[in-house]
Structure formats: structure tokens, C-alpha cells
């Protein structure tokens, strides 16, 4: 089943074309990677999908529904969650609060019901607390739930960001460089972790990653961007032997 599709998405910032004719298809349950050299437009592609930018031209469909002009919070409500390249936790808040906040979009009680703590709200509050604690348990952060989120070590912050994204109950999860800055052990754990959440939460995962070990290890398909243009698309094996990809990454010798 097709979850997400972009149709000839182009993003221009003034004279600069950051992403050109980007055509992506994500099928349910897949892990798909987006790779490319620095400045290739990968994060821009993420920002277009999640509604941070409106594409100059092109359309984005989520489960067949046009989401091109929707705001970020509405897109999250539909079921697309993301993490950020340079971790964006709510730094001064506790680990638990970080996850609880991601439950807020599902709260049905209005402000007054919440203020008066009516049974409906109390019930919702209890449920989101339980759900958040379960999530923290699952990602192994339950012992630090009351710590300030900025006091966690880097690897844990990454996990917390993923847990927070999971709390919004997504069907498609976008991970922006989840392995950035991790040591080999942490990277290996993360790879397992991504596979595990895909299975446990029935997710479709689209991730930007530079770490080839992670990319080649878990992704079923790979898109390669260079200067905003999709230069290759295929299985890990196809990508590894693709001449244009090698050129983009290693450069090409004109005299050869």
C-alpha cells in the first residue's frame, strides 16, 4: 500500500533550486533512505513533506490525500512524525514532559475541561501518562524520566527524540540523520532499534543518513540526491554500484 508520494516537487529559494522534480514513493512497512552529499537538499525535502516549506511546484499525497498546503501540525496529526538533524528537544523540560507534549495533539478535552479536571480530561491524562511511560520503558529511558532532557547524553537524546515522535502515533516516521555523532556501538544499537520500532509500531520509515553502514544495513530502497536532483534510486546493491552516485560522492577526475 502506498503511504506517501511526492509528484515533481520543486523548491526554489530565490534563484537557488534546492530540490528539483523530486518523486518519492513510500510503501507501507518500508525503510527507505535518502542520501547525498552535504547541501544536496535532503533536509529541504524533509521540510517540504512535513509542511515546514510549501513547494514551489509539485504535489504531496499522504495515503492518496493532497497535503501540499497543510501546516506542519496538521500533517503531524494525519500521521507523519519527524526528528531533527540537530536535536530539537524541549531542553528545559523533563524527559517525561517531552513525551507527554507529543500526546497533546490527541487531547479531545477543551481548555475548560482541562482546567476543571473533569473526568473526561482526567481519563485522557491518565492514558497519555501511561502511554508515555510505556514508550520510555521501551526506548530504555524510564530511569531518567525526571531528568532535564538537555542533561542526557547524546545517544539518549536521539532516542528521546524518536520516542517523542512515536508518541504522536505516526504511520510514517521521518528520521533526519539519526546516527549522526554516534559511536560504532551506538550506531549498531540504533540500527536494531529502528528495525524494532518499524515492526512494533507498524511504521513506514524514511530517513536521511550519512552513515553507510546504517543505510546499507536496513534500508530496502535508497534515493540519492545531488544538488537537488535525484541522481539515482534503487536497492542498496544497485546504488553501491551506480556510477553517478560514486561520482557525486567521490568526485570525478576530468583527465581520466
Amino acid at each position, binding site marked *: 500500500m502506498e503511504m506517501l508520494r511526492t509528484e515533481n516537487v520543486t523548491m526554489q529559494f530565490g534563484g537557488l533550486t534546492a530540490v528539483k522534480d523530486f518523486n518519492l514513493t513510500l510503501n507501507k512497512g518500508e525503510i527507505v533512505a535518502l542520501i547525498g552529499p552535504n547541501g544536496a537538499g535532503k533536509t529541504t525535502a524533509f521540510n517540504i513533506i512535513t509542511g515546514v516549506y510549501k513547494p514551489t511546484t509539485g504535489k504531496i499525497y499522504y495515503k492518496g490525500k493532497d497535503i501540499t498546503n497543510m*501546516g506542519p501540525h496538521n500533517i503531524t496529526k494525519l500521521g507523519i512524525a519527524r526528528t531533527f538533524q540537530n536535536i530539537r528537544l524541549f531542553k528545559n523540560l523533563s524527559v517525561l514532559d517531552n513525551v507527554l507534549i507529543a500526546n497533546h495533539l490527541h487531547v479531545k478535552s477543551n481548555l475548560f475541561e482541562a482546567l476543571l479536571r473533569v473526568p473526561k480530561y482526567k481519563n485522557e491524562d491518565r492514558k497519555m501518562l501511561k502511554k508515555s511511560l510505556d514508550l520510555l520503558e521501551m526506548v530504555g529511558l524510564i530511569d531518567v524520566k525526571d531528568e532535564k532532557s538537555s542533561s542526557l547524553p547524546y545517544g539518549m537524546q536521539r532516542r528521546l527524540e524518536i520516542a517523542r515522535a512515536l508518541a504522536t502515533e505516526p504511520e510514517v516516521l521521518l528520521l533526519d540523520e539519526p546516527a549522526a555523532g554516534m559511536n560504532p556501538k551506538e550506531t549498531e544499537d540504533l540500527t536494531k532499534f529502528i528495525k524494532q520500532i518499524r515492526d512494533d509500531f507498524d511504521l513506514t520509515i524514511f530517513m536521511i543518513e550519512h552513515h553507510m553502514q546504517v543505510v546499507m544495513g536496513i534500508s530496502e530502497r535508497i534515493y540519492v540526491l545531488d544538488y537537488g536532483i535525484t541522481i539515482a534510486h534503487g536497492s542498496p546493491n544497485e546504488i553501491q554500484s551506480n556510477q553517478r552516485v560514486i561520482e557525486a560522492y567521490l568526485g570525478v577526475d576530468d583527465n581520466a
Partner: protein
Amino acid sequence: MRKRDYYLTGVTLIILAIFLYIADMYFDAYIVRILNLCAIYTILGLSMNLINGFTGLFSLGHAGFMAIGAYTTAILTLSVDAKAQNFFMEPIIAPLANVEWPFFPALLLAGILSALVGFLIGAPALRLKGDYLAIATLGFAEIIRVIFTNTQNITNGALGLKRIPPYTNLWWSYGIAVFTIAIMVLLINSSYGRAFKAIREDEIAAESMGINLFKHKVMSFTIGAFFAGIGGGLLGNLLGTIDPAMFKFTLTFNILLIIVLGGMGSITGTVISAFLVTISLEALRFLDQPINLGFFVIPGVAGMRMVVFSVLLMIVVLFYRHGLMGNKEFNWDKFLQVIKFKKPLLKGGKN
């Protein structure tokens, strides 16, 4: 655990009530007035802290909301003949001339009107961020003041209003202050309060967690405006006279001083600092008088005591940015711990 906290809070409220009763009966008018001001500044500080401290919106429009609240309550509670006396330049417009409401509904309407204006101002202004929002809200407060100066047949213009019935007493001001604290605690610890804090911490992340930034910002701004209006109403009926010049930026600055000193994002801090600032504003009144240093006489300058506060604010911002409480809150566990810790220290002498 939680039962004990309810119990302790109940006892504290009873002690407060007894204290207010004694104060009401035996304290002289000057001290009662300062106590009233403390409570009113607590309400105002909390309402501003919700917007600036908890939601992270740099708003400087508080004097405007207070003006709306003070004028609404004053006009509605003024007796019919006091109105006739006040509006000698130009009579007050017909529908308002014969109204004389009791205090509570007038105060409630003051809050609602202020919230309504907050909503109408917030909807366009909250699309702005940071300094731009500050300038827009500051401009709004000035516009309100100028409007009130020029609507002679509603607000009596620059002449102001006199003989406002002094309805505000300790019971009203502390009753509403306690109510405001309760609402703030309930709000901040609810899912909506967490959403406000998320917006303060990181707007982009909050939005991508599904929080509707605009809706929640307007919500926080409107609630803040509501309580600012009520605070303004209490202030007007405490002082007995109001005029547009009262609601200049200095008033907003005083409240900003309270929340910065107390800690942006701390209810406890705001309460403590509202009392500290209000009391020291009175205690430092001698600075406005001529001071004889023996070798040099400082001539009396009105407003000299504000210099102390400006310097204090600078010190806080430069060296102690978290204020008194940072974003921590009072809780009974810690309070009891502190008390228990101190006792053996006192008895044993050394630790």
C-alpha cells in the same frame, strides 16, 4: 502523600484567612492598602508570566489590558450622581449614564472585555515573533491609552474618573489572587500548559509535535489579558481615581520587573517577587525625599527609588538570569525538607 498536600494547603489558606481578618480589623489603612497592592500585583504578575514566562511570547501590552479592565469596572460601578459629577465637560453617553453594577459582575465583564480585546489584538499580532511582537503589543497599549484620553463621553478623557467606589478590600484582592494562583497551577500542569511550555522551548519542534502554534498562543494571550483586566479593575476600585496617564509603559515595566525578578516561568517566583517589589517600592519611598549624607545633600527627586529597581533589574539580567526561582515551583515536600534540615543545624550548631 497527595492528601497531606491538600491538607497543608487547606491549613495555609485558613491561616491566610485569619491573617486577613486580623489585618482587616486592626491594621491601619496604609498597610492594608499595601497588602491589597501586593495581591493585585500578584494577579498582574501571574497573568503576564503566563504570556511571557510560560508561553515565551515577549508581550509588553499589559498596561493596555489593565486600562480596559480598570475603566470598565470604574464606569460600571460609579454611582449615577458620581458620574454626573465626573463628566462635567461632556456628559457620559446615555446607556452608561444610569448603570450602577455591583462589583463582581463589573469585574467579570472587565476581564471578559479585556480578554476579547486580547483575542482581537492577539490574532494578528501573534503572527509576529520576538522583538516585533513586543513592539506591536507596546503600540497596542499606547493606542488604548490614547483612545481613552480622547473618548471624553465614555472615559472622561484626560480628566480621569474620581469617586470610584472603594470596593476592593483584602477579601476581594486576596480571594481573586488565590483564585488566579489556583487557575495558573491547574493550567500549567495540564496538557495545555505543557503545550505552552513546548512553544516557549522550541516553536519548530512544538509544531512538528502537532501543536497548533497560533491557537495556543492566542489562548495563552487571551487568558493573560483576562486576568490583567481583572487586576486592572481591582486596582481602579482600590485607588478610587484613575486617569489614562496611569497606564503608561512604566506600569508594564513594573510588572515585567516582578516576573523577571521572580523567575520567568515560575508561579511561586512571581508571587514572592510581587510582594517583595510592592513592599520595597513603599519602603524605599525615603529615597524620593532629600537625603542628607552629611557632606552632601541629594535633593529630593520623585522617582529616585525606581533607579534602585532599574539597577536591580540590570543585575538580575546580567548575572542571575533565572531570577529568584528560575522555573522551579514551591512544593510541600521540599518545603518540609528545608524546615527539617534547618532544625538539627540550629540545635547542633555545626553540621
